[in-house]
């Protein structure tokens, strides 16, 4: 199962209002050799469009998104995947600052992984692997 998945590689959606952060995360993910199809979105509306087009193995969301917060999107995704009978969506939250209320609301939405900016490639991949239930690739294979 694991190998099968690796051949097909994972897909991911990255939502951040800063395109450069999206680009960076996308490169981190593809460099790891685990991901192939990485889509980016700068706001909640585009993110919802992308979600309706395809299914993602991993979604990375900025905590603070314009107009509506990132957690709004998380809520939407959770409902969406429940209705569409998908497996529970795996989400990583990335955030500029970490406050207790963010942790509390994030955990309410079932998010276990919160990364505070700036984070390293290594930390992102470690979180992604943990969430996908695979072991971390060693450094050599990350490129």
């Amino acid at each position, binding site marked *: 199962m694991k190998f099968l998945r690796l051949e097909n590689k994972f897909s991911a959606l990255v939502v951040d209002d800063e395109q*450069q*952060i999206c680009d960076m995360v996308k490169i981190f993910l593809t460099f790891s050799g685990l991901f192939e199809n990485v889509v980016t979105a700068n706001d909640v509306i585009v993110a919802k469009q992308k979600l309706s087009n395809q299914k993602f193995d991993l979604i990375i969301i900025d905590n603070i998104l314009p107009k509506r917060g990132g957690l709004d999107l998380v809520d939407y995704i959770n409902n969406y995947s429940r209705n569409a009978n998908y497996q529970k969506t795996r989400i990583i939250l990335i955030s*500029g600052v970490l406050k207790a209320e963010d*942790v509390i609301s994030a955990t309410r939405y079932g998010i276990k992984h919160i990364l505070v900016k700036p*984070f390293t*490639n290594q930390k992102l991949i470690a979180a992604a692997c*943990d969430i996908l239930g695979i072991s971390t690739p060693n450094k050599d294979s990350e*490129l």
Partner: protein
Amino acid sequence: MQEDTQPFQLLDALFEPIVIIDDKFKIIYYNHFFSTFTKASPRIIRNAQTIFKIINVEEKILQTLLATASANNQVALSQEMEIKLASDASEENLAPDRQVHASMKVIPLSTTRYILCFNVLSVEKGLHRKYREKLEELKRAHGQIIQADKLATLGELSASIAHEINNPLAIAMGHGEILERVLENETIQERELVDNAYKNISEALQRIKTIVMNMKSFAHKSEEKKQYHDLISIIDKSMMLVDTPFRAAGIDLKFERPVDKFITLVNRIEMEQVIVNLLKNALDALREQSTISAAHIHGIVEIKLKKNKQDECLEILVIDNGPGIPEKIQGEIFSPFFTTKEISEGTGLGLSVSSKIVEGHHGKLQLTKSSNEGSIFTVQLPLIEVSSYVASVNALNASNDASRKKILVVDDEEKILNILSTFLEEVGHTMIGSTDPSEALEMMDKLEMDLIITDYNMPRMNGHDFAKNVRKKSNSIPLIYLTSSQFLNHFQEDRQKYNIAGLILKPFSKEDVTTIIDGVFKEAKKK
């Protein structure tokens, strides 16, 4: 001989104490205001042999004044001095000697008649002193205002700057990393130059990151001094601090102590300050009420401590049966310098400082009820697990060392939690503290951890049952027992069954802890 005092009657119209004396200091005439001033009855004044019976000044001083006045035939003025107004104990005057601050003026009428006026300065002097005191007070308050305002602004500013910088910083650092990876496998002519340039860039960015981290911790400078404390003992201490004024005012102060401990991660001094501020406000409100309200209400202030399951937080309630807070000022009471009290009684900083402190603990301070039957102020603090998780993630974020781990420690003794957290931090790990096994189990679902250390002997759920439940959730997370030797047999029993990775025996040293933990992590890596 009866002297004609008719011309002197004019003096009665003047609002200054004036007396006419002869060169032997005998009183010839005095005006109304003089008797008011001396508080001596006309009879006493009339019977007085000399003016010194009424006014206690040195004879020499008055003598000199009279001499100067008559010699130059002009007005002579004394220096300011304290003048005692003699009270004659033999008469009905029972009041103690009064003292006034005044100067004397002598106007010669002839060689045997002198007008003596008193320029009373006591009132002016009193006013001046009061004015100076108030001015000092104002200066002090102003200093506090500026200081508090500076700190608040600086704190808010640095928190928001930190936030603004972190995004571009993340972009710069991340893309730098990408560059490094790409260039690693390229053959470049100027290899050394490129490597050096990259090294300089990443060091500079790392420095910026450190500065931003420090700025953030300046904004919440309490962060470093947070420790695991039982809120009950913090409340006890705060109540002790205000015990005297409460007693003096005859106001009851109650606290129904819960059976369970309420251990949280807080800065003890700051939390005490918050509770004392709230208690003092309640006391002030009740004191004021007792002076104005006709119907006598016995003042009661009550503290309640409870867990709010729904909001996942701990709550401290300070309840008073005072007059409440008028709706139109409710929005302002948390602003700095808002006060309804006299300048000497309140600076209006209590609530604003307290809410800053509570925010620094990731909590909230709110007025949750106010009517004419009283007010309730509520302090909400995050559960121990959440606050220590936030502290732990922030600490991990501050370093780039990926080998640092998040370790969940379950123990109902704050001392053990504090010792372990110091040890673990010293070797570079971070700790998430929990005092309640069932809460810890919930945390496992919500947050991601690398290792669990659990006390064996706990009131609600012992280590054995806890381990059983942990294994229902996860087979892989390493679990360590923390216990005294009397429970050693349990470890041996559970070891295989629940895959217990190790044992820390109480009492333990830092080396004991680190050796066992390192061993467990090495073992886990192999698998």
